[in-house]
């Protein structure tokens, strides 16, 4: 049985797990472990980025047209918010390394507020998309907003469908599988990917918020689990990763394509 090593640094007490022999070994194990986890996260998002790239290359015109429906201003605001939250998170980790509990709590609170702000803006964006029938599915109607502006939104797709039928004539032929009145599949594909990617990202933001809130609570009662800076550093790595995902989502979804 190895004696439990106690390591003091910057006045922090760290508990060494029985499987480790030194605190350095334990610390680096946790950080490397976190990085391997982030690697899986990269690959997790990777498949979606690949799908986005492929469908964009297959349907460049449609994707370009569709991406103009995203709110560039709100997207920029959100990027700003996330970058700022990354900054505050980095400072939080710094306070943790220095063992300054108050600074840690304050910076984490700021980060949580930024995260909440991000989700708030995101929900406004999502709400607008729902309102404009841009959420993919049977109610998807790419031109809804345009026609609403022109005051002929009544009837929506139904009217459009009839119009189509009138043009095509009642041919009564054997049909392919009915796909509903959706004619703008490829523009819809953009929104499928938009919601899938930003949705998955938003879930990650939410998880990050929960983690930070837990750390704040534990730090507030000076729980031994967070006296050590490693848990905060791990949370920080995760949070910066979430930020990086957005750094790429923002231009690829909101900006690219003319």
């Amino acid at each position, binding site marked *: 049985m190895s004696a439990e090593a106690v390591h003091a640094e910057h006045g922090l007490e760290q508990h060494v797990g029985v499987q480790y022999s030194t605190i350095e070994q334990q610390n680096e194990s946790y950080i490397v472990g976190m990085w391997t986890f982030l690697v899986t996260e990269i690959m997790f998002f990777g498949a979606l980025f690949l799908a986005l790239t492929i469908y964009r290359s297959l349907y*460049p015109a449609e994707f370009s047209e569709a991406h103009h429906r995203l709110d560039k201003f709100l997207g920029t605001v959100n990027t700003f918010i996330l970058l700022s939250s990354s900054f505050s998170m980095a400072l939080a980790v710094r306070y943790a390394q220095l063992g300054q509990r108050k600074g840690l709590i304050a910076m984490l609170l700021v980060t949580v507020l930024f995260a909440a702000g991000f989700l708030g803006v995101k929900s406004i964006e999502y709400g607008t998309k729902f309102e404009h029938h841009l959420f993919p599915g049977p109610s998807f109607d790419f031109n809804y907003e345009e026609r609403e502006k022109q005051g002929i939104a009544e009837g929506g797709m139904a009217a459009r469908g009839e119009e189509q039928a009138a043009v*095509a004539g009642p041919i009564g*032929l054997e049909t392919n599988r009915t796909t509903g009145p959706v004619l703008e599949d490829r523009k819809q594909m953009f929104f499928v990917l938009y919601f899938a990617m930003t949705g998955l990202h938003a879930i990650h933001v939410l998880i990050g918020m929960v983690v930070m809130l837990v750390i704040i609570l534990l730090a507030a009662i000076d729980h031994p689990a967070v006296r050590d800076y490693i848990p905060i550093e791990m949370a920080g790595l995760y949070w910066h990763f979430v930020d990086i995902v957005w750094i790429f989502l923002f231009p690829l979804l909101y900006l690219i394509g003319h």
Partner: protein
Amino acid sequence: MPEEASTYAGPYDLLFLALTILTVVFTFLVLGFLIFLAIRYRRGARVDRSRPISHDIRLELTWSIIPLLLGLGVFAWAAVLFPSVYRPPANAEEIFVIGKQWMWHIQHPNGIRENNELHVPTGRPFKLTMISQDVIHSFFIPAFRVKRDVIPGRYTTAWFQATKPGKYHIFCAEYCGTNHSEMTGYVYVLTPEDYQRWVENNGPSGEAPGSTAVLTMAEAGHQLYTQLACGTCHDPDALNRGPLLEGIYGTQGKLPNGQPAPVDNTYIREWLLNPSERLSQKYQQSMPSYKGQLTEFQILQLAAYIQSLRPGGAQPPPTAPSTPQRRRRGGNAAPIAAGGSQPAAAQSPQTTLTGAAGATTPAGAQATNTGNQNGSNNR
């Protein structure tokens, strides 16, 4: 050794044989050495074990590089053969294959339809243009060593030139649902003379009772063109509401999303199903989407019609090239020997070509009314 019945089967089997020899030699080499050494150096055996070696870089490199070279040789051989697998020769005649759960629909350019059966003559190359109506299938003729996935939403091609008359399996090789193992059929390879006779008899009796005579693909496409009132915009006298179609096939066009592409079946399919209003402003009226309203066959028929339109504006479709003069089905000859296809149904007298024009069930509807009992009972 499975039967070789196409021009591709011979080269294929040669490569297969070479690889098999390689495999057998290597397997026996490795296993022989392993067993020999294991017995020779078994515990208790009095053999010389002095100076054992635990590594030897030259040996390692030898047995890395030799297999690598052999492997690259096999790769090269297979890669040289590969481009010919799916690239049809220029003179190949086209056959259209539609896969659907759980049946193969086949249509020859001359209009003959078959279900789960395919009649071809020896000595002529055929190009298969294939698309699926639902899930992914795979058109597989083992005797020809030909296989290609049949994918929804996209044309795939394969080709073959049969060499040996006979009856060979068609399988669906990609799992496609409940009756996957029954999505089979036969390809009947006939001598050119037998094939000629078979064509003259209009092939199997696959038509619905009361339907019209067999239209060529282009004729059926013309019917559809009329029926869908495509002429409103695309006829020469349509005041330029839409682009003229004469001679457009094979030229360079623009896809609905603005990308340049050659005008071919894929191109026409794209315009029919996914037209874009944005890019058709040149014309007064935009192209509607026919998504969900045309079968895959009908799309191919329209494409065949457009292909048949030569510059100069001749509206009546010419007869399909390189097929013998069509006759109405009358059963004047016995079924072809190898065929096994009994013209059981629809012995009724045939009406003329235009008989059903304007009715609600033109050529396309026949795809569903598969009166053909041959395909499903052949097993």
